[in-house]
């Protein structure tokens, strides 16, 4: 670590992060960018709840409300939840399989910068004539009619960041297939790695549907085609299918890694092997598979007819079975374990009832006939917040506390962490539980205000109060991060004391080459096995030798920047004469930098054996 710890100037650090191809630093980039967008989406949520706190409110206008609502959903799904999950997948998965990096470090960086520029592009809409306002689903009948450039920002921005996600997913797949340490068979992979694997496969198959849908939308809006315009022989339902063929797998893309994080937490803090490991793997794969067969449950009311509705209803309900398997396995993992209620464990324990509540309303929504009552009401809003917040966001908080020491080498304060948890837990249920009833009482979703005297006042006020609890929780978490970073008390390899998987066998944060010698994996929970036999660390699987490392590169940044510029050109092409030249200029930047990348040989460099031995003497053990 000695070479790493040297103090660098701010400029040098910045340049390092702009050009890094190290999965651990890219994880930090994802964490920062995703965290920023999470705060932004949270702010938008607060505006929504303030507007709906009292009837006939005029805190924001109807049009602005639509923009805030749309950007809240879009930001939270694409720019907050996904990148934050990618942060943990990047930070942890390569360590868990005993790899020195992902399979394609360059692409890893490219994936991040594409996501980042896509997100920035989308959010610039606020300053350039108005944000998208057709909901995060952007149904074509609304989005084709929407004036201004809001929807163009949506389509182009998501196209760019979607490409980044797709690249990231493929990279993870190849990494897991090819780069597992000796002895790390598929059935010895930690649950989080399995979740990453299945999630990446879902990304690979689901995102193309979004890409196609967005392209059709872009062509309809900007280049005069008529895919979605019924008056011209198109069909607006086509967008809905494309969107949900992507959209439903997307919810599992989000929740499977959350399941993975919780699986790790339950095992660590119950000091027990995960109950039913192989059934967990099976359930994860099955959920991934079934996730592709159910998308039309979002469209029961579009008039698909009784047969299609029945098929999709039954398929949807079937997903409850593997999900149930997982829930019981987690409960059995805790059963008889010696449980410690650390902050991550609190989130994990609270996740079970919260997520199950969301699953139960999911099954209710899945019965097509009932859905005619629930559809487009606050009941649906309550459902998906129970699964997304109670599942995904809880996991992100839990994961942040669990992996903070591995990523930054210092522990978040446990006391503040627990306060964050309590406030958020109370706030979450206060906000969303009552929304089930709001929906059943007839409050439609996506309305900017409601009238007095319809029995909706109290419940809406309660909901808003809950939102403030959650905001307070997030602020305390931020304070916690600041305090922790300033104190910066360094911790050792296994700060929780009960780490089971490979990432806990190496220093926190790990050296940039991760493993000096690749570890030999002798079973599930590889590190725990060695600890139980009284060993300090992993046995190496190879003699100490030179390590081949990739060079940093600025090219991913430039490729993404080019697309960012080109997107402006494409958007303003019709009304400004500079549109086409800017479009071409942006594409030239992108293609040019890709060309440079192709013709310039970059073989990376080697860390020499002698330098590694050198490190050893100074006690890397930390």
């Amino acid at each position: 670590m000695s070479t790493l710890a040297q103090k660098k100037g701010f400029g040098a650090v910045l340049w390092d992060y702009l050009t890094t191809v190290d999965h651990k630093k890219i994880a930090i980039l994802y964490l920062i960018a995703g965290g920023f967008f999470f705060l932004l989406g949270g702010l938008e949520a607060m505006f929504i709840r303030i507007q709906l706190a009292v009837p006939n409110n005029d805190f924001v206008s109807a049009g602005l409300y639509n923009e805030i609502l749309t950007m809240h959903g879009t930001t939270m799904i694409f720019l907050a939840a996904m990148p934050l999950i990618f942060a943990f997948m990047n930070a942890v998965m390569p360590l868990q399989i005993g790899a020195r990096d992902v399979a394609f470090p360059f692409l890893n960086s490219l994936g991040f910068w594409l996501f980042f520029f896509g997100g920035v592009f989308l959010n610039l809409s606020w300053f350039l004539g108005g944000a998208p306002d057709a909901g995060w689903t952007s149904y074509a009948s609304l989005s084709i009619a929407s004036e201004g450039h809001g929807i163009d920002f949506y389509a182009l921005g998501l196209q760019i960041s979607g490409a980044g996600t797709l690249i990231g997913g493929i990279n993870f797949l190849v990494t897991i297939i090819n780069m597992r340490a000796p002895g790390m068979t598929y059935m010895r992979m930690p649950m989080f790695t399995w979740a990453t694997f299945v999630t990446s496969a879902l990304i690979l198959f689901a995102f193309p549907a979004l890409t196609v849908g967005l392209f059709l939308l872009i062509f309809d809006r900007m280049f005069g085609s008529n895919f979605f315009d019924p008056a011209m022989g198109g069909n607006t339902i086509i967008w809905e299918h494309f969107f949900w063929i992507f959209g439903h797998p997307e919810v599992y893309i989000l929740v499977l890694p959350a399941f993975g994080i919780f699986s790790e937490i339950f095992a660590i803090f119950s000091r027990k092997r995960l109950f039913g490991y192989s059934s967990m793997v099976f359930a994860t794969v099955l959920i991934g598979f079934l996730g592709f067969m159910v998308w039309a449950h979002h469209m029961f009311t579009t008039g698909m007819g009784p047969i299609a509705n029945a098929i999709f209803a039954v398929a949807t309900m079937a997903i409850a079975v593997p999900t149930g398997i997982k829930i019981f396995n987690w409960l059995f993992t805790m059963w008889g374990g010696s449980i410690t209620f650390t902050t991550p464990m609190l989130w994990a324990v609270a996740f079970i009832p919260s997520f199950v509540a969301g699953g139960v309303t999911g099954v209710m929504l899945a019965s097509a006939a009932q859905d005619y009552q629930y559809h487009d009401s606050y009941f649906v809003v309550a459902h998906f917040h129970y699964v997304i917040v109670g599942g995904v966001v809880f996991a992100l908080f839990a994961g942040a506390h669990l992996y903070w020491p591995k990523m930054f080498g210092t522990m978040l304060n446990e006391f503040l962490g627990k306060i964050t948890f309590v406030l958020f837990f109370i706030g979450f249920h206060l906000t969303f539980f009552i929304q089930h009833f709001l929906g059943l009482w007839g409050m439609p979703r996506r309305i900017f205000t409601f009238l007095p005297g319809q029995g909706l006042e109290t419940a809406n006020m309660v909901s808003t109060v809950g939102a403030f609890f959650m905001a307070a929780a997030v602020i305390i978490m931020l304070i916690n991060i600041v305090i922790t970073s300033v104190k910066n008390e360094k911790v050792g390899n296994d700060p929780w004391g009960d780490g089971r998987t490979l990432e806990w066998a190496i220093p926190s944060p790990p050296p940039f080459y991760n493993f000096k010698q690749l570890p030999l994996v002798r079973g599930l929970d590889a590190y725990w096995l060695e600890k139980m036999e009284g060993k300090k660390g992993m046995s190496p699987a190879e003699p100490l030798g030179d390590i081949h490392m990739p060079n940093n590169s600025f090219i991913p940044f430039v490729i993404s920047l080019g697309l960012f510029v080109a997107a402006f050109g494409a958007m303003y092409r019709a009304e400004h004469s500079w549109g086409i030249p800017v479009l071409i200029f942006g594409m030239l930047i992108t293609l040019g930098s890709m060309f440079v990348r192709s013709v310039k040989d970059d073989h990376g460099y080697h860390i020499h054996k002698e330098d590694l031995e050198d490190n050893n003497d100074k006690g890397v053990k930390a």
Partner: protein
Amino acid sequence: MANQQPNSGNPRVDIEYRRKKSAEEMKHQVITFALMIFLTIVAFVAAGYEGFSGWFIVPFILILAIVQVIFQLYYFMHMSHKGHEAPALFLYSGALVGFITIIAFLTVIWW
């Protein structure tokens, strides 16, 4: 990463055995190549022959196309070899997802 060498780079493999394998491989490729040309001719004949209705020709040609794709994948792109399980899995999953999408569009939207 050093341990991830593909076995083909291993100098110790038996050269004799390899030769025999290659010869066998070659034979398969020639046979499939001939078959593929034959199937292509059949497709053209089917399309050109007046006596068949479109309801026969279109599915028939589609089936021939699928057979051709399989030949291509297995005999020319070496999917029959060991170590191609993961690509095969992903290929079939992708095909399945695409297939379901098309079926859904045909039945739910346009029927």
